[in-house]
């Protein structure tokens, strides 16, 4: 894998819009076949980075390449290798679904692409809407059409810019099943999302951006190790807790107690002390650290 040409290579990218430094020296390498997450708060530079990869925005300095093709110099090859699902829910109201896909396919110089167009429509549940004008599609269907448009030329690299913003649960699930399948079949996926649980579940590696800089870049499982903050929630049969634990435990509005801990021995000690005090545990729930804790931590420190 390390010998292969990276799917996405970005080095020293800088971009300034008037007074805002949107990107401030971003370097990244995403290998072929990865499911890569790009996270960051609004205005961190995620969309600017994607726009540069797609050729919609020109970097002030630095380089970007898709499958080894420079996005400026070899823009024809780099754009052929890239499928972008834009963040905005855009559509052309003059055409129906099939025409939209047929035309988009033509832009990439593809003749007789009907077989693949039918397949993409089938997988995205668009077949029965093929002859519907795009104006008459629901929001979810428009989103799926955008995904279909990005896939119409079978790009090896697919970029999804917040594809599930404002999308209902069913569609979100079917979308992820389809994207995961594409990833298993060898497509490289670059995803930006505000739903951190999605990124945690799907992405093998994650980069976090803040103010145009990469502030974290690692495998998702390594990032999760950065925080040790476990949390136990307990419901007890008595109102009080042993004096030694008064300060460590927090009372929740529903009457249960919460312990934040980094070592499981803390929890063992608490349980032992409760037993010694003859207090019974009625219910206990454990929360593993998640990406949101890591994200919050990293954003605070960066």
């Amino acid at each position: 894998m390390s010998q292969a040409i990276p799917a996405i290579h970005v080095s020293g990218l800088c971009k300034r819009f008037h007074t805002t430094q949107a990107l401030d020296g971003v370097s990244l390498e995403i290998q072929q076949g990865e499911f890569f997450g790009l996270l960051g708060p609004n205005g961190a530079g995620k969309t600017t980075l994607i726009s540069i990869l797609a050729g919609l925005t020109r970097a002030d300095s630095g380089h970007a390449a898709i499958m080894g093709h420079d996005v400026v110099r070899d823009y024809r090859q780099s754009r052929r290798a890239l499928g972008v699902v834009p963040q905005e829910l855009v559509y052309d109201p003059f055409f129906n679904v099939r025409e939209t896909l047929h035309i988009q396919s033509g832009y990439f110089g593809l003749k007789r692409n009907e077989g693949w167009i039918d397949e993409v429509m089938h997988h995205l549940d668009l077949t029965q809407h093929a002859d519907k004008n795009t104006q008459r599609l629901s929001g979810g269907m428009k989103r799926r059409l955008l995904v279909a448009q990005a896939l119409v030329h079978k790009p090896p690299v697919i970029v999804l810019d917040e594809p599930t913003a404002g999308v209902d649960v069913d569609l979100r699930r079917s979308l992820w099943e389809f994207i995961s399948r594409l990833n298993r079949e060898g497509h490289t996926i670059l995803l930006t999302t505000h739903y951190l649980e999605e990124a945690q579940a799907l992405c093998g590696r994650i980069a976090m951006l803040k103010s145009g800089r990469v502030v974290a870049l690692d495998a998702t499982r390594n990032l999760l190790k950065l925080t040790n903050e476990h949390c136990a929630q307990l419901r007890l049969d008595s109102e009080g807790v042993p004096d030694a634990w008064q300060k460590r435990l927090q009372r929740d509005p529903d009457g249960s107690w919460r312990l934040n801990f980094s070592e499981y021995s803390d929890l063992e000690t608490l349980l032992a002390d409760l037993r010694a005090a003859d207090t019974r545990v009625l219910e206990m729930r454990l929360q593993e650290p998640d990406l949101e804790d890591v994200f919050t931590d990293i954003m605070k420190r960066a």
Partner: protein
Amino acid sequence: MSGLSALFYKELLRFWKVVVQTVVAPVVTALLYLLIFSHVLEAHVEVYPGVSYSSFLVPGLVMMSMLQNAFANSSSSLIQSKMQGNIVFVLLPPLSYLEFFLAYLGAAILRGLVVGLGVWGVTLWFATLQMPHPGWLLAYGLLACAIMGALGILAGIWAEKYDQLAAFQNFLILPLTFLSGVFYSIHSLPPFWQAVSHANPVFYLIDGFRYAFVGHSDSDPWLGLLVAGACFVAISAITLALLRSGYKLRH
């Protein structure tokens, strides 16, 4: 198909889907002009000896319709795509700036020619024209649509809102076409306005086009061809330079 032909096809399909608005409406408008002006002026005006006012007016109306519709096609397509954000579908694929230009230009020319043919067709009932110089007809027709198609691309890229495009249309295109001798010969104007008219490139387009039909013109058709050709080259060069730089399209 190549990216260029796909974009050209998309632009054709776009105006063909709203053919009533893009072709039938301008034909009806031209017909109304013809009915009203020829009714009022037919008996009073003879611009060239032996040429009826209707026969004088028809080539002007055909040309005016072609000019306005070629401009409208590329400019409105671009501004709509920009406003609705679907311009991104054209910016993401591997299309060169030249392909982009040629596709929009080609569709604008075709729309102009279709409308021109339509106007000519319905006016046949009112004025049968001899057309002694078909070569000039073709040259001026194509060149006029090309100039306005390219200008439409330029305006469509430049405008950020519909009212900016409307301003371009109302304060530039419309006065240039109306004050170019569609309805009158500029020889009937005072010398000052005659000189002003000679500075209007649209005047040469109408004058040369009319020459193909009636065999009379206010100025030499070769001079007109030179002016029109220079205009097309200049507007295309500016538009291509803007497209190449990504002006207002790629940030």
